[in-house]
């Protein structure tokens, strides 16, 4: 049975209502995480508070409800509380993603006054030294843990976010325990975006690592039934979700670098209903034959962004998606 959120999302996807918008407020960050693709990107001009106020208002009119504010590190923006105030005024449900370094006890208390649904805090490892080394910031682990504790004290939902890679493989077990201990939710992702286009990230998991990780997480399918294999390759990017970069560039998804225009030059709605967005949606029906005819597609957690960043086209196949699908197929066979 669908949850209400799933059925609303499906309806939004069918009607191209941008229910969830992921906003990168800045590329600036006080950490230098080992895998961060943002470090290879140029610093860019950032929209001002006034410009974001206008964009929020246009997103509201377009039907957006969920706003994820991220970066870089969103708390390096001095006007972060003004942005949250505006998001509250426009009745958005806000999720923040942060490394926790700038979340003091006072900040945690202040966040309670806004429409913040949850704060995601990134953890590379459950071991202090490893986390600090991978984030490039001594003291980061202890501060992130303090941030979680302060947020929880205020009753704010915290999601401990972890990216599994070859550098920290196995840490997910201890991090899951840490999440329970700190009374927060745990979200684990094993997609590592490459910082050099055209190749898979050096940190991408092997098939055996995918198998170990997915088995541990109790995941034995990509979430689609066998007779629904076309849906397996569908993604909501550019339909019920989109992303906006620090300088106002609109994307079907924040990690899918297919620009649909800039919200400082045209209104959000004119871009969302414009030629670029419409042709992106139309082109999803013509994914590469490698994928549409692929025997593994029911096991594939299709992501057009990963396909584009690891290959040459968002409609093509991807090394890490294939490895993951392979792992899921093997888990399925073992179960039988």
């Amino acid at each position, binding site marked *: 049975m669908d949850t209400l959120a799933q059925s609303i999302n499906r309806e939004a996807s069918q009607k191209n209502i941008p229910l969830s918008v992921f906003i990168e407020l800045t590329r600036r960050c006080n950490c230098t995480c080992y895998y961060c693709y943002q470090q290879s990107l140029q610093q860019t001009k950032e929209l001002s508070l006034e410009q974001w106020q206008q964009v929020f208002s246009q997103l509201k009119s377009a039907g957006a*409800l969920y706003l994820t504010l991220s970066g870089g590190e969103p708390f390096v923006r001095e006007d972060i509380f003004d942005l949250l105030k505006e998001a*509250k005024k426009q009745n958005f449900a806000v999720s923040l993603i942060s490394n926790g370094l700038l979340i003091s006890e006072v900040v945690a208390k202040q966040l309670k006054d806004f*429409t913040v649904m949850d704060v995601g805090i990134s953890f590379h490892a459950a071991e202090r030294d490893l986390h600090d080394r991978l984030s490039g910031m001594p003291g980061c682990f202890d501060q992130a843990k303090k941030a979680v504790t302060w947020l929880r004290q205020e009753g704010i939902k915290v999601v401990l976010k972890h990216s599994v890679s070859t550098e920290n493989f196995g840490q997910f077990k201890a991090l899951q325990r840490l999440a329970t201990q700190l009374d927060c939710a745990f979200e684990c992702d094993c997609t590592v975006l490459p910082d050099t286009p055209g190749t898979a990230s050096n940190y991408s998991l092997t098939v055996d690592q995918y198998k170990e990780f997915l088995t541990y997480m109790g995941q034995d399918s990509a979430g689609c039934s066998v007779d629904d294999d076309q849906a397996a390759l569908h993604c909501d990017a550019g339909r019920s979700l989109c992303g906006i970069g620090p300088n106002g560039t609109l994307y079907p998804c924040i990690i899918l670098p297919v620009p649909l225009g800039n919200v400082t030059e045209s209104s959000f709605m004119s871009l969302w209903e414009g030629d670029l967005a419409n042709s992106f949606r139309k082109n999803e029906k013509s994914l590469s034959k490698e994928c549409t005819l692929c025997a593994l597609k029911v096991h594939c957690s299709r992501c057009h962004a990963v396909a584009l960043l690891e290959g040459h086209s968002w409609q093509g196949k991807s090394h890490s998606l294939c490895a993951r699908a392979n792992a899921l197929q093997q888990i399925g066979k073992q179960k039988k």
Partner: protein
Amino acid sequence: MNLLKTDHIQRATNVAQRLFEEQMLVITPKDSMLHKFNAVGTFIWQFLERSHSVEEIVQGVQKHFDTNDEEAVSQDVITFIEKLCEKGLVSLKSE
């Protein structure tokens, strides 16, 4: 909870909401749960943009949905407002 017709109701200020295909989506602040209101619930929620007494809400619903059955409308309105109170979406306004 015993609501009086004279009680004034006001919406909580930290509620995320959006009108979605003519139905109101509201997220309860305590547990971040998503709720969808039916047509009457959506009307009441929008009517509460400004604070109103229970009696005014009942009259508003009767007028908007063109019904004279005050008894039934009162009962529905009170049940709905009580649920909103429980979820922390509205509160009684202190005079």
